[in-house]
C-alpha cells in the first residue's frame, strides 16, 4: 500500500513554476528520500503535503484518501528552519504543539512526559527554551514532531544541529518509528544519510521529478558496469569488450585495475576472462554512490 501518492502536482508562483506536474508514490512503512538541489521545489512539495499551501493542479492521496484537513493530525513535520517559542517552558510548549495537532490536554501531558523520560531530558520540563542549547532545542523539536503519533513523518534536514551522539539517538528513533509502521519522508542534502537510511528516493530538479525508485533500482539503473579488480601481474583484455579505465601498482607486483564492460555480458564473463590472464585477489563492482548519481543527474540537467 502507498502511504502517499502525488499525482501531477503543479504549483506556480506568479512567474516562477515551483512544481511542474510532479507525480510520486511513497510506499508505506519506508524511509523515503526526497532529494534535490536548493530551490528545486522540495519545500513547496512538503508545504503542499502539510496543507500550508495548496497545489494549483494535481492531487495528493494520503493512505488512500484525498488529502484534507483531518489529516493534519496524521502528519508530523519537522521543518528545516525550526523554531520554538523562546519564552515558553519546554513542557508547556510540547503540550501546546500536541494539542494543536488534535490531542486532548491530558493525553498531551502524558505523552510529552513519556517522551522526555525516554530522551532523558526530564529536568528540562520547566526550563525556558531560550535557556537550552541548540542541540537540546532540537530534541524538544523532534519530540513535538512525533508526539502525536503521526503515520507520516516529514523530516527536513533532521540532523542539522545535532552532535554525532544525538544524531545517533535520532537515527535510532527514526528506525524504531519505521518498525512501528510509520512512513518517513526525508528531505536532505546529506547523501551518506540517504545511503544509510533511505529505502526509496525521488530526485527533484528545477520543479520536475527526474528520478524515482527504490535505492536498489536506482543504483541498478545508474550502474556503470565498472569493476575494480585487485590482481597479481599486469594484463591486457580484449579492447572490443572491455575498457581499462585505470591500472596502478599497489605494491610489488600487485595491481588495482578499474575495468568498464562495454556490453551487458555481466560480471561472471569478465571474471572468467580475467582468470585466464591474471591471478585475481579481489573483485568488486563499482556501484555509484547516491552522491554520484545526484551530481551526475543534476549537473547533466544543467547542460541541456
Amino acid at each position: 500500500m502507498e502511504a502517499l501518492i502525488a499525482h501531477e502536482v503543479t504549483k506556480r508562483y506568479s512567474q516562477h513554476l515551483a512544481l511542474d506536474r510532479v507525480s510520486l508514490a511513497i510506499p508505506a512503512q519506508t524511509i523515503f528520500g526526497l532529494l534535490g538541489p536548493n530551490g528545486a521545489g522540495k519545500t513547496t512539495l512538503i508545504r503542499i503535503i502539510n496543507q500550508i499551501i495548496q497545489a494549483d493542479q494535481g492531487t495528493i492521496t494520503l493512505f488512500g484518501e484525498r488529502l484534507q484537513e483531518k489529516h493534519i493530525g496524521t502528519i508530523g513535520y519537522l521543518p528545516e528552519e525550526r523554531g520554538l517559542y523562546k519564552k515558553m517552558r519546554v513542557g508547556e510548549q510540547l503540550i501546546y504543539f500536541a494539542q494543536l495537532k488534535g490531542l486532548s490536554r491530558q493525553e498531551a501531558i502524558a505523552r510529552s512526559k513519556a517522551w522526555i523520560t525516554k530522551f532523558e531530558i526530564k529536568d528540562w520540563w520547566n526550563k525556558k527554551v531560550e535557556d537550552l542549547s541548540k542541540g537540546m532545542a532540537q530534541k524538544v523539536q523532534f519530540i513535538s514532531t512525533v508526539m502525536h503519533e503521526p503515520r507520516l513523518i516529514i523530516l527536513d534536514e533532521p540532523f542539522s544541529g545535532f552532535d554525532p551522539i544525538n544524531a545517533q539517538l535520532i537515527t535510532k528513533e527514526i528506525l524504531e518509528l519505521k518498525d512501528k509502521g510509520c512512513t518517513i519522508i526525508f528531505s536532505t542534502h546529506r547523501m551518506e544519510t540517504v545511503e544509510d537510511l533511505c529505502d526509496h528516493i525521488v530526485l527533484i530538479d528545477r520543479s520536475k521529478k527526474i528520478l524515482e525508485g527504490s535505492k536498489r533500482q536506482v543504483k541498478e539503473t545508474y550502474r556503470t558496469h565498472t569493476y575494480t579488480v585487485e590482481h597479481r601481474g599486469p594484463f591486457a583484455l580484449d579492447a572490443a569488450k572491455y575498457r581499462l579505465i585505470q591500472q596502478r601498482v599497489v605494491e610489488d607486483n600487485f595491481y588495482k585495475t578499474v575495468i568498464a564492460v562495454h556490453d551487458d555480458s555481466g560480471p561472471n564473463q569478465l571474471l572468467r576472462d580475467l582468470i585466464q590472464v591474471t591471478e585475481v585477489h579481489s573483485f568488486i563492482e563499482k556501484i555509484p554512490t547516491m552522491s554520484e548519481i545526484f551530481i551526475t543527474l543534476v549537473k547533466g540537467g544543467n547542460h541541456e
Partner: protein
Amino acid sequence: MNKIWLIMKREFLTRVQKRSFLIATILIPLIFPLLMGLMMYFSVEQKRHAEKQEIQYVDESGLFVPDTSVFRFKPFPGTFQQARMLLDADSNVVGTLLHIPKLDVMRPAGITLYGKVNLSPSDIASLEQMLENRIRDVKMEQMKVNQKLLDELKTDVSIEAITVTEGGHEEASDSSILFGMGMACGILMYMFIFIYGAQIMQGVIEEKSSKVVEIIVSSVRPFQLMMGKILGLASVGLLQFLIWIVLITVVSTTLLTYFGVSMPQQQMMEEVGRQYPESAAAQDYAVASFMKVWDQIPLTYVIFNFLFYFLGGYLLYGALFAAVGAAVDSPAEAQQFMFPITIPMLIAYLSLFAFVLEDHDSAISVWLSIIPFTAPITMIGRLGFGVPWWQLLLSQGLLIIGFIFTTWAAGRVYRIGILMHGAKVNYRVLMKWFMMRN
C-alpha cells in the same frame, strides 16, 4: 474553532503571567493621578516659595498705588533719566523699572516696563490688571461713582446649562467636564489601540523570525493563527480594563469616603452652610453642580461604548498590524508600513483636539465618528455630549463591517507573508500576495 481557542489561550496566558503585565495593570491607574498630583503640588509649592520680584518705579503721573501682592514695589529715588542711566550702566542697583509718565486717564499711553530679564506674560498681565484697576478707580472718582454704589450694581449670575434629552429628561450639563472626559477617553483609546496593535505586530514578527510559525501553520490555518493571536491579545486588553475599572472604582470610592465628598449632597450643603454661612455660597454651588453633572454622566453607557470602540478599533487596526508583522523580518523594516496605518489614527487624534470636542455636532465631527478608521477615537470623544442613536448605530455597524474587512484583507497578506523570509517587500509585493491564490 477549537484551534483558534488554543492559540488564543496561549497568547492570553503567556502575556498575563508576565510580571510586566501585573506591574503595568496595577501601576498605570495609580501613576497618572500620582503624577498629576505631584505636578500640582510642586507648582503650588513653587509659587508659594518664590520670592516676589522687585520692581522699581518712577511715577510721574502721581496716580500709581502699588499693590504688593504679586510684586515688591520700590519707588526709585530720582528721575526717570537717572534710572535709565543706571539701568544702562550695567549696575545692579536697578533691575526692573516701571515708568509711568504723566498721562491722560482717558487715553493712558507710554507706560513702559524696562528690564534686564524678560518678564513672563502672566506677570505683565497682572501688572496691566493692577494699572487698569487703579485707573478705573480714578475715573470713578472723577465721575463721582463710589465703591458702595458699584458693589450694589454688581450681581453674580451663573447659568445652569440643561441638556434636554430625547426622553424629555432634564440633565444639568457642564461642558467642561464632558470635554475633559471626552479628551481623556480619546487619548486612552488612541494609546490602547496603538499599544495593543504594536504588540500583535511584535508577536507576529517574533514567531516569524524564530521560525516557529512553520510548525504552527502545519497544524492550523494561517488565518486561525492570526485570529487566535488577535483575540488572545484582545482578551488581555479586556482583562486589563476590567481590573482598572475595579481598581479605579475602589480607589475613588475610598478617597471620596475619606474626604467626605460622598455624603449626600443635601446633607453636605447644609453642613457647609452651617460652617461658613456667608462666604461659601458660590463655592458649594460649584461643588454641587459638579456632583450633579458627574452623577448624570451615564457611566455604564460610557464604559460599555468605550469597550465596544476599543474592541472594534483594536480588531480593525490589529489585523493590519498583524499583516505588517507578517510582511517583514524585523521591527525596523516594519516602520515603512506603519505610516499608512498611523495616518488615520493621527487624523482622528488631532481632530479630537482641534475641533471634535469643541464642535461635536459639526458635519465633519459626525463624519469622522462614523468612518470606521477614525470612529473609535472621535466617537468616544463625542459620546458625553450626547450622540443621536442613529449615528451611534451607524458608526458601530460600520466599525464591525470595517474590522471584518481588514481582517479578511490582512489574512490574505498574512498567510503568504509568514512563510516568506528575506524577501524585499514593498507595496506592490503586498498587493501580489493579496491577490495570490492559496
